[in-house]
């Protein structure tokens, strides 16, 4: 077998057009996942009545089922729900007008939320109890103490795990092809159907994923340096 280097390059250039889609799916799911995850982590740590068992079940169910299953459940289930609601309220909106990528956004955000809640929870647990006591002692409310003292430190502590999650979501974004979203892998398949050089096309896709992942790693390293500035003297 001979490797067609020229075609790897051609495929590479064509795959670049799918990069924004992959990045959009990753960014949306990570951002929404972080919001959901933080809320879930705080609810679970503070054992908020009623919400606490719901949050715990959410995490165990989502982590206990594959990401692809979430996508399929949302893809087939959400339209039923949306149409039922629209009908009940007499709205003209119908699920067919939801863009395909919308299903990926919703489902991957739900997936990311469950995983990230554990990332945030471990970050929160890493913050010394004395920090919040000191915040209370100077007269802060719980929400002020959380926002100004605990969460920034928890965020710094969870950066390494967070970067893991971001990378996981980037690679997971490839599953969106099952709902006809043309992300990097799907694009590779499309490109290769013209001449059946699948290996070259997927190789180009791999290079792109690796490059993006490498950039995420570098960015995390920079962020860690920035946010962990206060640790430079060692243990305090």
């Amino acid at each position, binding site marked *: 077998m001979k490797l067609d280097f020229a075609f790897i390059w051609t495929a590479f250039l064509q795959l670049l057009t799918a990069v924004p889609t992959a990045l959009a799916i990753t960014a949306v799911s990570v951002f929404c996942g972080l919001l959901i995850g933080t809320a879930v982590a705080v609810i679970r740590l503070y054992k908020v009545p009623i919400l606490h068992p719901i949050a715990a079940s959410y995490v165990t169910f989502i982590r206990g089922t594959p990401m692809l299953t979430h996508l399929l459940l949302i893809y087939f289930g959400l339209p039923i729900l949306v149409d039922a609601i629209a009908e009940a309220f007499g709205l003209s909106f119908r699920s067919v007008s939801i863009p395909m990528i919308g299903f990926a956004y919703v489902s991957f955000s739900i997936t990311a939320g469950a995983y990230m809640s554990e990332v945030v929870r471990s970050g929160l647990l890493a913050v010394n109890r004395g920090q919040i006591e000191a915040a209370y002692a100077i007269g802060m409310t719980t929400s002020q103490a959380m926002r100004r003292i605990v969460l920034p*430190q928890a965020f710094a502590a969870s950066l390494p795990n967070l970067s893991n999650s971001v990378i996981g979501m980037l690679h997971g974004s490839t599953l969106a092809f099952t709902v006809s979203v043309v992300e990097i892998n799907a694009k590779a398949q499309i490109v290769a159907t013209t001449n059946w050089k699948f290996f070259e096309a997927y190789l180009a896709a791999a290079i792109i994923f690796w490059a993006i992942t490498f950039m995420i790693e570098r960015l995390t390293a920079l962020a860690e340096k920035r946010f962990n500035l206060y640790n430079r003297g060692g243990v305090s």
Partner: protein
Amino acid sequence: MIKLTQIRKSFGRNEVLKGIDLTVEKGEVVAILGPSGSGKTTLLRCINYLEKPNDGQISIDDFNVNCKRPDKKDIHTLRGKTAMVFQQYNLFRHKTALENVMEGLIVVKKLPKDEARQKSVELLEKVGLGSKLDAYPSELSGGQQQRVGIARALALNPEVILFDEPTSALDPELVGEVLGVIRKIAKEGITMIIVTHEMSFAQDVASHVVFMDGGVIVEEGKPSEIFNDPKEERTKQFLKRITPEGVYSI
């Protein structure tokens, strides 16, 4: 004036405070002494509600908190009137010395940034850290961190500053600098309640000494009375062990 009435606190079935009554006059420096497990730190933490008392009343001037049914707002007000210096310093790790002192002024007292900054710089200079404004806690020695902790407490102009064994976590060499700062602010007439194991310091700085054991106040009075002429057998025993006369023998 701070008045504690029948403060009770239990951890599970273990009753740590068995009805404490204590009155602290304005400007007084009260030292609380006692063996480990006597409840002195718990009592101090109850005063600003870091520990929730099960029963009793806390009054600061005209403001009362009924510990049986405390209002969330009352707890917040109470914390606004008190400040605490911790055994483990508990400086905000992600903030510089200056930011640590400024934090309460900006977030709680809502002071404009410039004003907060100016006041914080003055206070840090007062505790001898004018050259360490931008250092993070991890870059400071224990003694320096504790002095930032004291500046942070002072910044809030509290009715009372609560010191929870402020020198227990320090190297012996660094104890002096922290006690020096506390001594200095004691002279300014700020009301202070200090839980300490530093007997000579308590004798020297306190205007009132409280001896606790087993969750009750065994004896209280002027330092000269407690240290030179204790009435209760338990106090005598404690002081004898902790301040041996003459030389140490091994």
